[in-house]
């Protein structure tokens, strides 16, 4: 099947949601609910179909073909020639992008469908769909861009949509509206701190590399992989290579005339290519095949021992020069290609020093800085310590928003960015150490806090933070595949859990209305804004739930699927992905002996135990036991719009994990997929994967982790099962309904600390907010009001002005100006008084004067004549 042209469709993936958003934004008010909903859903589904076509090409193609740089969509998007800044609007389709495309559009489409049911009756229905579509557009820009600036455009765009959607219900009256608006503001402000990091990182990247492109068009990200799938031979790993070959030109012991020098001439490359064209090497022949790279890693030559043995035509249409990047100058490469170039220069080489005006830094140090700043941005967007505090509050948004943005897609943008920058990370082990520690600490901390929460969505929010911590920790370990794998599986089962919780909230609220005889008015607003209703019944509070398993069977079953997947019970999606992260931590710790491996493994195991515990606590509180409120007792099952997406997601949260089954574990060869299908798929985006032996299935660890999860579930069951879920469960004041852990003296402190969210908000309040407010107060009251206003304005400016004005008014205006004007008047009066005597009023006088005047004039006229006469 010819799929080569499919990636050219990539602008449409972004354009279609943009059109949907445009229609709903400008004509939404005139459209009926159903029409604007369908516009949104259609846009998302079309985007999904196109993404599927694109991914089918990427998955089907091999090597260089699996990475596509379509021609720049808008060349010269930002161009400042004087500093050599030229950023095209260019897309890049490669495996990482593909995964994100499917996750974003797939989960996104399901959530659009779900929203049709969930938002039913909301007065701002069309605006909601416009925002969802616009979010898809920005998220897709984020994942498809080929440079850091496009990524940043998407990054800020999704941040904006997050702000708008968290505060979607800002117009609910009173405290609730304020709470929603404040949550949105908190998300915006905390993310600005992170964006400072991203910006610094992007600036540093531009300063260092002179470009922001991930890869130049035509550049091959993973030279070794591309060569391998073209059956040219194995690529030696960089580390081993530089040890064996030293710094000099890599001269391969030549058999025959094909010798690879450090400086590859074109003829050599051609020779290699010539051989390549006849060469088809079965995997077994790789041993005989030698290919190596020179010290820059830009060029590779193949030793064609087996050239003659090769049979058949591999038919790869890609020329060798296009694979090995030898057609590029180092500085023409994208940032990642350049990184490789810099890092392979010897330590202390002048070329490695990056000048920052007054000082210089080694390239390795710059890389560390770039990654640490980047991690600050990731901590903001992906809710890691220290900037995770906005995500629990973000649950103020409607539940589909929480599912789509604050669980499945937007918050994973940070992980995506880190995996996209995997080449940087490969060369910066110190930065990876920091990232791994941050990620694993976050995972445990958030998992622990989730144990003590009452709000059904807050539990899931902390769970999301915890799982994001898993992903970030995986990136820190260099386990990029595990991170992306967990990202994909988590997107599915956490979206499922959030949508399930939305269904529960929806049901409880309906039940509440029903039970209170308000009449069941489906056109009433009944979303996350319950508290705005006439009573303070909170349908999100798990203390008001219980026994919903009988009332909402489909929601219950699908929720169980999500719970099992998240807890990592065997063969559910979370089992495979979480286990892979743990296995990588094990490998880094025990096999490679790195400290972070042990730390991460320990923290993540504890976090995994917490995960199983809090999820089972939630299931018990929500679905089991007896209903604890009228709302829960009367809750109806949700409509098909909402249940069908739940069923689809439940199906995938069981099956999606099988796409990356380890070599020797259970389900080896399941679905006819290769082992580590996902890893192979990602290889052309993640160079360091090639040559790395995939980890074997770690039975000990898998059994241990599963046993831990079961133990946690059993413990949770012993505490929360049935009617034990709450103490004083009949107390009308829900604040008196106590958690069993709190009721038990031994665990009271532990639970209280979790319930108080470890006082993070309070600590930030004391450390940042209060000093900030005090500083602001100082500036406002002392500097601005007392100094500037009272002293400077009133004393210096006003008095000075008054003095000057007085000076001008009295001596100058009154004295000089008025004096001059009055003096002129007086003078004229004086002279005219003297001259009025001339006017006698007698005609005769005038006639005489006239006569004299005439005589004088005549004399004057005649004078020249008289003189002339006299002169003769």
């Amino acid at each position, binding site marked *: 099947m010819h799929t080569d042209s499919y990636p050219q469709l990539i602008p449409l993936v972004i354009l279609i949601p943009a059109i949907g958003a445009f229609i709903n934004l400008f004509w939404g008010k005139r459209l009926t609910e159903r029409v604007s909903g369908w516009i949104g859903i259609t846009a998302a589904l079309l985007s999904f179909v196109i993404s599927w076509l694109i991914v089918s090409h990427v998955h089907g193609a091999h090597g260089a073909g699996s990475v596509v740089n379509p021609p720049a969509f808008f060349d010269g998007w930002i161009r400042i020639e004087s500093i050599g800044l030229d950023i095209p609007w260019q897309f890049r389709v490669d495996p990482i992008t593909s995964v994100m495309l499917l996750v974003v559009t797939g989960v996104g489409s399901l959530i659009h469908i779900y929203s049709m049911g969930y938002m039913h009756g909301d007065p701002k229905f069309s605006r909601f769909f416009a925002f969802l579509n616009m979010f898809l557009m920005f998220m897709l820009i984020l994942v498809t861009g080929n440079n850091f600036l496009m990524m940043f455009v998407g990054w800020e765009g999704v941040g904006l949509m997050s702000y708008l959607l968290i505060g979607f219900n800002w117009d609910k009256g009173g405290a609730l509206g304020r709470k929603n608006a404040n949550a949105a503001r908190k998300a915006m402000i905390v993310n600005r701190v992170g964006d400072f990091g991203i910006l610094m990182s992007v600036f540093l990247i531009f300063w260092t590399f002179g470009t922001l492109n991930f890869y130049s068009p035509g550049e091959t990200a993973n030279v070794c992989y591309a060569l391998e799938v073209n059956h040219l031979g194995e690529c030696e790993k960089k580390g081993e290579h530089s040890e064996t070959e030293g710094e000099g030109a890599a001269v391969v012991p030549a058999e025959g005339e094909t010798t690879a020098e450090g400086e590859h001439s074109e003829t050599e490359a051609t020779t290699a290519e010539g051989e390549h064209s006849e060469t088809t090497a079965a995997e077994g022949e790789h041993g005989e095949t030698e290919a190596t790279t020179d010290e820059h890693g830009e060029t590779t030559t193949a030793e064609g021992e087996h050239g003659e043995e090769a049979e058949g035509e591999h038919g790869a249409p890609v020329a060798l020069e296009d694979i090995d990047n030898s057609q590029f100058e180092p500085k023409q490469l994208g940032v990642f290609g350049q990184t490789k170039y810099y890092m392979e220069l010897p330590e202390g080489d002048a070329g490695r020093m990056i000048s920052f005006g007054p000082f210089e830094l080694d390239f390795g140090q710059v890389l560390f800085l770039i990654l640490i700043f980047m991690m600050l941005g990731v901590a903001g967007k992906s809710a890691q310590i220290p900037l995770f505090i906005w995500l629990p509050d973000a649950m103020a948004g409607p539940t589909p928003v929480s599912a789509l943005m604050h669980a499945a897609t937007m918050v994973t943008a940070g992980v995506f960015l880190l995996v996209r920058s995997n080449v940087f990370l490969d060369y910066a082990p110190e930065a990876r150490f920091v990232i791994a520690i941050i990620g694993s600490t976050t995972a445990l901390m958030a998992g622990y806090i989730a144990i003590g929460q009452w709000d059904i969505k807050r539990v899931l929010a902390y769970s999301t933070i915890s799982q994001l911590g898993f992903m970030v920790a995986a990136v820190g370990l260099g386990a990029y595949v595990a991170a992306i794998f967990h990202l994909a599986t988590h997107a599915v089962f956490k979206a499922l859990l959030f949508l399930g919780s939305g269904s529960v909230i929806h049901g409880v609220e309906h039940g509440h209305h029903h039970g209170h005889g308000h009449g069941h008015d489906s056109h009433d607003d009944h979303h996350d804004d319950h508290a705005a209703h006439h009573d303070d019944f909170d349908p999100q509070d798990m203390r008001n739930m219980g026994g919903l398993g009988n009332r909402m069977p489909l929601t219950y079953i699908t929720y169980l699927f999500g719970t099992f997947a998240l807890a990592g019970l065997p063969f559910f999606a979370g089992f495979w992905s979480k286990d892979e992260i743990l296995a990588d931590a094990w490998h880094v710790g025990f096999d490679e002996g790195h400290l972070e491996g042990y730390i991460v493994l320990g923290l993540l195991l504890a976090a995994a135990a917490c995960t199983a515990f809090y999820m089972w606590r939630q299931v018990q509180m929500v679905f089991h036991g007896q209903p604890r409120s009228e709302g829960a007792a009367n809750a109806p099952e949700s409509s098909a719009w909402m249940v069908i997406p739940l069923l689809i997601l439940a199906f995938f949260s069981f099956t999606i994990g099988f796409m990356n089954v380890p070599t020797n574990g259970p389900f080896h060869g399941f679905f006819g997929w290769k082992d580590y299908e996902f890893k192979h798929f990602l290889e052309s985006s993640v160079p360091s994967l090639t040559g790395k032996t995939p980890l074997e299935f770690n039975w000990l660890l898998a059994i241990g982790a599963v046993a831990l999860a079961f133990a946690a579930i059993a413990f949770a069951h012993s505490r929360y099962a049935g009617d034990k879920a709450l103490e004083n469960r009949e107390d009308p004041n829900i604040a008196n309904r106590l958690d069993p852990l709190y009721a038990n003296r031994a665990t009271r402190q532990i639970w209280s600390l979790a319930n108080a969210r470890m006082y993070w908000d309070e600590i930030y309040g004391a450390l940042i907010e209060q000093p900030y407010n005090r500083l602001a107060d100082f500036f406002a009251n002392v500097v601005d009001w007392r100094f500037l206003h009272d002293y400077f304005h009133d004393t210096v400016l006003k008095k000075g002005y008054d003095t000057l004005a007085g000076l001008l008014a009295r001596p100058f205006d009154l004295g000089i100006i008025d004096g001059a004007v009055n003096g002129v008047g007086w003078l004229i009066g004086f002279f005219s008084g003297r001259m009025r005597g*001339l006017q006698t*009023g007698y005609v005769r006088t005038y006639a005489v004067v006239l006569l004299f005047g005439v005589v004088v004039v005549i004399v004057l006229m005649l004078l020249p004549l008289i003189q002339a006469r006299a002169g003769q």
Partner: protein
Amino acid sequence: MPPAVPTEFFVMLSMILFALGAMGVLLRKNAILVFMSVELMLNSANLALAAFARQWNEMDGHIFVFFVMTVAAAEVAIGLALIVAIFRHKQSINIDDLHQLEG
């Protein structure tokens, strides 16, 4: 044909008449006499104009004389009306009684 009377004579006569008119304007108190003196000055000017026109054989002077006579006729109409109005107002045509414009 040489002129029968030399132009100088006319000019001399014109001067005398003008001087007489001017004296009349300055020395007479009766408004009508002042008025007549003004007419005398105008006509002396007319005489000079006609004399020079004859001297230079040009028609300009004659034409101008007609203009002056027309204006003088209009002036007489207005001037006599003014004098009648003044007399009605003041019961006098003594111009020395008329000094309201005194400064």
